[in-house]
């Protein structure tokens, strides 16, 4: 049979000049088209897992192959980036793990033998059962990421009896981004720490006139749906951008984006300089502060605590809620806020409370005074940003407010000062009156689905609960995201010993600062299991490897967690059957549950799933949607419609409000922090000032070590490559992306051109890089001399270099054999209070490799 082709098509049209229309002849030639060419073509809705953001997309499947990926445009923010478009390259990656594996060499050597599923499942279930008979389930940790079985996997391990499910977020956003926002706007209680999800707010790129980007560019970074799309549309609307960053990212704009190079880790003094200008020139929004914030709160100067508080009940949406009432000065009289008509925002007062005279100031007065010394000249000294730029940026914020923002950033855990930076960003957005306002920063909305499995309460105290209680330096840690604190536990056996780790999609060695210590800890475990479609650094240390399939090969729970202004419902469906001998995550968990749990327990929690499959999960999830208004509920389509690829979306709301602060106000002066700082001081914690509710120049670790770097020394900063994703091979080893990785020097390190010349370097030289605290770990990388990098910074795309622990690159054809992964050589340091990793907060030294 003759095959037709595009070239024939071309010939056809040349002929058609003579022969007439092509369309009319299709039927005549239809016999050359087999059913396999188009008859089984189908469209399958996916949620992209090329990074972790689950942007809605659609796969075209032809001849049982995924042949094309498109954005699912059934949402106002529809759009996927280049990573998603390359999903076929990950699905058909010939270097995927194809069968279960069992280690035969030393841990780290990467020597495995093939095994059957029964063998590996029995080994793991056997170990879990042994530990259960010893009543030591808490010594098992399950570490999930996005290649997992949402709705079933963590649930299984909780039912099994471990309270320890360490998430990865402490090496990303937790807990600086969370506390930096929720200490001021409030949040739900997570083991005593206020918690807003990392997707709580968005900058209103589409409607903003001006914005300052810090530590993030929404363009080529992650979250195309909705941030990338919103950002692009904003640029199209003429939004002006200033990028305060040690390296200028192209993604924020090339012709029209102001670059303000900053010394790495000095965002806090920069923001204090901006705040100084806001107070000096009265750029703040007085009405906003009066109406919505606790700027008028009287603070006891000696303690930093509110002068006096009392609990009152308040009507809110027809419900009675308890809030803290506090003292203010109203028309010259000290009174409680609930009874005040015209509270004063500035001033110092001696207030008599229960017969004692106390020196008090309004919280706004205290904040103002705490930045009084932060003149543009002082700021220049700290940050290397010219004083004139500080003045200009503050003025531009004032000229455009409230349609302006300082971006919240993401992947927040970089420096010891990260929490302070996030607090200052929130405070400035509040001072300018942009929080909750069109063109400023606003609350995202979301919808919640019903829980499929209600797990029993844990009997043992979890690791984070122990640290939150016993370790002052962990006072603001997340009780969900704590994988490096878990490593601390493995090493110290505090509060108890860890014996088994099961990684599902988490690459703890590649993705967390201080890989050396992490490896040391892993080597002490009795069993390490890794579930992953791809090789990574952590797999090299696993005893048992289970290949789960990629997201294109499995159905998944309905997803509603998006960094989007509007509530969104979508689902990932299976486009093709699992390849090789891989299995989907649900199948793996069900098999483990079946082999581990007592028959009646299995039946109680997993019986329905075993009989009805994932449909039972979808039905349950969809049976109760919460967080929506009546009008939105009326538009909810039948479940089938979602399963067929419809993306349901709700409404966008602007609105200025707190989200559960103790006072019910937006707390420009955080009462949570005030209270915690007092407690931490009492406990003798030496970095209690990192919890201050007032602006403070908390230093990064590297500046405590050296105030000036030697010529050959740098701070290793990173940013996402537009076609890279954390440390994952789904993008790094993706052949579809290889040419573009090459075109953009994805594996190189970039330093300031002039500085490079003084070091005798030229572009494409190979350099050796060491952390000055760990000189034994030498990494080689190709250097590029660049005009768009601060002299104190060495930039690399995050996770794109091979790094020091690069054994796995042998099995990955497209992964560079050299290049920096700062995590590998970083110190095993923790950011004060939040316990996030200090991923860029160390000093490296470079020399030409000979």
């Amino acid at each position, binding site marked *: 049979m003759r095959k037709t082709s*595009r070239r024939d098509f071309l010939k056809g049209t040349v002929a058609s000049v003579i022969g007439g229309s092509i369309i009319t002849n*299709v039927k005549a030639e239809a016999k*050359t088209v087999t059913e396999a060419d188009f008859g089984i073509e189908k469209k399958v809705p996916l949620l992209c897992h090329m990074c972790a953001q689950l942007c809605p997309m659609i796969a075209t499947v032809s001849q049982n192959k995924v042949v094309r990926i498109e954005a699912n445009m059934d949402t106002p923010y529809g759009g996927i980036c280049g990573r998603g478009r390359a999903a076929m390259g990950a699905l058909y990656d010939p270097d995927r793990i194809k069968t279960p594996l069992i280690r035969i060499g030393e841990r780290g050597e990467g020597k495995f033998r093939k095994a059957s599923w029964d063998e590996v499942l029995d080994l793991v279930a056997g170990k879990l059962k042994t530990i259960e008979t010893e009543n030591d389930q808490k010594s098992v940790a399950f570490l999930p990421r996005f290649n997992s079985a949402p709705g079933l996997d963590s649930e299984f391990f909780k039912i099994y009896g471990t309270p320890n499910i360490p998430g990865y977020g402490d090496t990303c956003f937790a807990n600086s981004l969370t506390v930096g926002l929720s200490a001021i706007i409030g949040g739900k209680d997570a083991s005593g720490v206020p918690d807003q999800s990392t997707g709580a707010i968005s900058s209103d790129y589409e409607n903003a006139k001006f914005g300052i980007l810090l530590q993030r560019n929404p363009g080529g970074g992650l979250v195309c749906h909705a941030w990338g799309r919103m950002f692009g549309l904003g640029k199209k609307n003429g939004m002006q951008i200033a990028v305060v960053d040690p390296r200028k990212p192209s993604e924020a704009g090339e012709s029209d984006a102001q670059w303000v190079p900053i010394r790495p880790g000095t965002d806090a003094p920069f923001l204090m300089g901006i705040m100084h200008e806001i107070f000096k020139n009265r750029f703040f929004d007085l009405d906003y502060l009066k109406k919505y914030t606790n700027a008028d709160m009287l603070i006891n100067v000696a303690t930093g605590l509110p002068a006096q508080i009392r609990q009152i009940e308040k009507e809110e949406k027809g419900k009675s809620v308890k809030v803290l009432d506090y003292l203010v000065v109203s028309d010259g009289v000290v009174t409680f806020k609930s009874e005040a008509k015209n509270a004063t925002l500035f001033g110092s007062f001696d207030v008599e409370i229960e017969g004692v005279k106390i020196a008090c100031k309004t919280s706004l007065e205290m904040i103002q005074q705490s930045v009084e010394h932060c003149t543009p000249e002082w700021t220049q000294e700290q940050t290397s940003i010219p004083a004139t730029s500080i003045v200009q940026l503050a003025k531009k914020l004032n000229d455009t407010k409230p349609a302006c923002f300082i971006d919240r950033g993401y992947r927040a855990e970089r420096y010891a000062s990260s929490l302070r930076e996030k607090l200052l960003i929130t405070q400035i957005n509040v001072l300018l009156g942009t929080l909750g306002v069109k063109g400023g920063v606003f609350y995202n909305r979301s919808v919640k689905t019903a829980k499929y499995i209600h797990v029993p309460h844990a009997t043992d105290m979890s690791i984070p609960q122990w640290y939150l209680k016993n370790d002052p330096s962990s006072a603001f840690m997340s009780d969900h995201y704590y994988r490096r604190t878990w490593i601390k536990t493995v090493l110290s056996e505090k509060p108890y010993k860890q014996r088994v780790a099961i990684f599902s999609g988490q690459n703890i060695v590649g993705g967390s600062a201080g890989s050396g210590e992490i490896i040391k800890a892993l080597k002490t475990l009795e069993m390490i299991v890794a579930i992953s479609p791809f090789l990574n650094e952590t797999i090299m240390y696993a005893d048992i490897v289970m290949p789960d399939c990629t997201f294109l090969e499995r159905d998944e729970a309905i997803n509603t967690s998006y960094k989007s202004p509007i509530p969104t419902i979508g689902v990932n469906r299976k486009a093709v059957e699992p390849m090789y001998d891989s299995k989907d995550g649900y199948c793996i968990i069900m098999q483990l549950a079946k082999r581990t749990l007592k028959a009646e327990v299995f039946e109680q929690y997993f019986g329905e799933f075993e009989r009805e499959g994932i449909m039972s999960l979808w039905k349950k999830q969809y049976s109760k949607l919460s967080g929506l208004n009546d009008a939105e509920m009326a538009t909810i389509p039948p479940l089938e419609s979602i399963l067929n690829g419809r993306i349901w979306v709700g409404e966008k709301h602007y609105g200025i409000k707190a989200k559960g602060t103790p006072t019910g106000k937006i707390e420009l002066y955080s009462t949570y922090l005030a209270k915690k700082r007092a407690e931490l001081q009492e406990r003798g914690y030496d970095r209690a000032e990192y919890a201050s509710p007032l602006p403070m120049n908390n230093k990064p670790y590297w500046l405590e070590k050296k105030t000036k770097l030697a010529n050959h020394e740098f701070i290793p900063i990173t940013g996402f490559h537009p076609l890279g994703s954390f440390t994952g091979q789904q993008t790094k080893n993706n052949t579809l992306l290889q040419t573009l990785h090459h075109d953009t020097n994805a594996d190189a390190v970039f330093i300031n051109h002039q500085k490079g010349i003084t070091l005798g370097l030229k572009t494409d030289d190979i350099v050796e890089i060491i952390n000055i605290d760990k000189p034994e770990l030498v990494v080689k990388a190709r250097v590029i001399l660049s005009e768009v990098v601060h002299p104190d910074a060495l930039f690399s795309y995050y996770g794109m270099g091979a790094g020091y622990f690069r054994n796995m690159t042998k099995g990955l054809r497209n992964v560079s054999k050299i290049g920096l992964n700062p995590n590998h050589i970083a110190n095993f340091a923790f950011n004060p209070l939040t316990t996030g990793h200090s991923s860029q907060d160390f000093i490296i030294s470079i020399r030409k490799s000979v």
Partner: protein
Amino acid sequence: MREQIKCYDTQACIRCFACMVNCSAENRLRLQREGEMGIEKSVQIPMPHLNYLSPRRSEIGMYPNARQVTAFHHCNHCENSPCQHICPTGAITTRAGGEVVINQDICIGCQSCGDACPFDVPKYSADNGKAYKCSGCYDRVENDLKQSCVEACPTTAMFSGYKENVIEEASKRAAIYTQKTGKKYVVYGAESLNNYVGTLKWITIVEESDLAAYQLDTKPERTAIQWRDYAKIGGGALAVATVVGTTAHFIYWLDKRKKKIAAGEGDFHE
């Protein structure tokens, strides 16, 4: 078939490279349709010549007054298409929709097109001795689909349509940027650049003083070539089979029809 053109907007672009990845992916799908190589195999081989759209990065200025610029390197589908004029076998033609295309069955790999192209576009593949460049996705366009790069863009930085509509939208955007930034933005390629290339069917919205930075040549020429005698051989273009109607065509038609049916049910928005 009315002429369609594309526009790239340097201001709305977030440099995510979705356009470039999608171009490369679409060309692999074409290999599958042609029966040359299945998609599973083709995404395992880099094949840089299938990236018809590539970034060319450079840095402008000196620290701290510096920036990186990402020029988009691609075929401009010139009105006067010098590659077509020089092609000795007639392998290069301009389709009714305006796309300048290479017919690889006729291409003999002489690389004259590369010599004639003032933008240095056609890529030569040593593997099979043919020249490659953007086909304007005419197979998609002629079936009412957007070009794969345009379809991929999440921010409407890449858009296409009938010439007058695209130029109107581009001019509107340029005027907004000029007003908001205080710097003059122009639409490169909308007006004839010179007699050698004429107007372009891939135009670019760019700040005027950045034309050179984005490697947008306002006087594209290949002096030596212009003196060469154009050897146009009509026979090559006619020496073709008469097969018409293709799998590709049929799949696109089917795809479109399925979407319409789905939209009719109100369950799937286009």
